[in-house]
């Protein structure tokens, strides 16, 4: 989905809503983002569970964990390692995560592969909103954890960490992290999803 840059949304007025608490209709583990000051009735109905089907949820969470379709979202150097993870030697497709969907509507997990510059932040926010829940975010590489090698006091160019824009589920350190680290991160996310109910979020 193309995202025009548009005005820079001030980052601090976005509050991270409480995570979806894993009921059948809700967003599984995936959290959803609501504007600051959204009071109770504005939170979509589906986020308030009434009936919980334990076994069915476990089955669905297992299915979700084993078919995480990443969004092709390469920003910088980590994108090359993400492509290497998708290529023949490390092969993400073994875990069902090899189907890279270019359109945000069909993707489950957004892998932040590279530095998020301040000009890119609103585009990232728009892409995250376009993804259907349950959705997850993997922060790959130092730049998405806390700015990495480009962080120094009073710097003007980058957003220091992906969690300032989007609720991140798994952090993968490294600059760039090796493809095995990315696969380990995806498997860790799978475990987190499978453990759905115990993660009250």
């Amino acid at each position: 989905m193309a995202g025009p840059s548009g005005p820079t949304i001030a980052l601090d007025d976005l509050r991270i809503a409480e995570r979806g608490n894993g009921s059948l209709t809700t967003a599984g583990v995936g959290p959803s983002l609501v504007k600051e000051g959204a009071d109770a009735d504005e939170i979509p109905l589906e986020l308030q569970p009434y009936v919980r089907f334990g076994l069915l949820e476990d089955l669905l969470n297992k299915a979700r964990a084993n078919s995480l379709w990443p969004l092709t979202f390469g920003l910088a150097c980590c994108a090359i390692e993400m492509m290497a993870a998708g290529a023949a030697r490390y092969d993400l497709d073994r875990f069902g995560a090899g189907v890279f969907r270019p359109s945000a509507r069909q993707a489950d997990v957004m892998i932040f592969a590279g530095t998020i510059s301040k000009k890119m932040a609103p585009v990232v926010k728009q892409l995250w909103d376009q993804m259907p829940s349950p959705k997850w975010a993997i922060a790959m590489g130092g730049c998405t954890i806390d700015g990495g090698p480009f962080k120094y006091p009073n710097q003007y160019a980058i957003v220091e960490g992906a969690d300032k824009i989007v609720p991140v589920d798994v952090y993968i350190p490294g600059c760039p992290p090796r493809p095995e680290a990315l696969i380990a991160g995806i498997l860790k996310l799978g475990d987190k999803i499978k453990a759905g109910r115990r993660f009250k979020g």
Partner: protein
Amino acid sequence: MPETVTQMVDSPALAILIGIAGVMGALTFNALFLVWLERKASAWIQRRMGPTEVGPFGVLQTIADMLKLLSKQLITPKHIDKPLYHIAPVLVFVPVVAATSLFPFDEHIALSNLDIGLVLVFAFGGLGIVGIFMAGWGSNNKYALLGAMRSVAQNISYEIPLILSALSVVLMVNTMGGPETNGMNLAQVAQMQHDKGYWFVLVQPVAALIYFIAALAETNRAPFDIPEAESELIAGFHTEYSGMRFALFFFAEYANMFIVAMVATVLFFGGWSGPVLPGPAWFFIKTYGIVFAMMWIRWTFPRLRFDQLMSFCWMILIPLSILNLLVTAFIARAV
């Protein structure tokens, strides 16, 4: 001629139920199997592993995908054309299910034995195009619109060589079979190839080749996958669809491939006729052989540009198929 299900079962309502259950079950299994086959075939061609973690040899992978897509949130964008957007996946999916019931799997039993079987198959194929265009137009997204325009132009122009090449087989069957045979009836075509002992692909190689190429274009696959060209138009006409709606398009694409392969099996490779194995086994072996060939081509060829694709169809395929039709007519008259 094969005894149809309705004749075997006395009450027609029950027959319809059996028919629907059979077709839906077969198609669902087929879609799941084909998705798995595609990922494994592409992995084999690309020297990698493909899905291996979910179940033995990754067999349960597509079931996991289907379950995940089932439980995804169905996003409906705000400024879409609501009726078109919601009907499109249905209109793409239903003709495919209907078309599956027309094929003679075996000498004795068939779901239906219609005299206009072949015409119906191509008619249902045409309906799918309308669905794709509605999807592209309804989802109010420039990429989807571009994808829809391309898919309509491509499918309509490749429909012509598809039908002409099938026509040459029908013409041959009618002339060779005498007055009462009807080339449109797929069961009779398969029966004749069994009686004659040779497959029509040996007699009609050019028609088979044209049919195969046009079939590739008809199902938006391989060198002709312009409508949902991943590297150009994000995801083509189904950019705005998420969750189960997107799964319907996915499902319809693989079922379409299956149907086109079945038509090729019946017309050119002798349907269910084969030496040792029972009828349906031969039928499915041939069909899945053709489907594998389509997958093989997808993972080796780059994509044609839009104007090259159109000129290829109008300048080369259509004249060739007309020529083939004329040649068949002369030979059929002479024989």
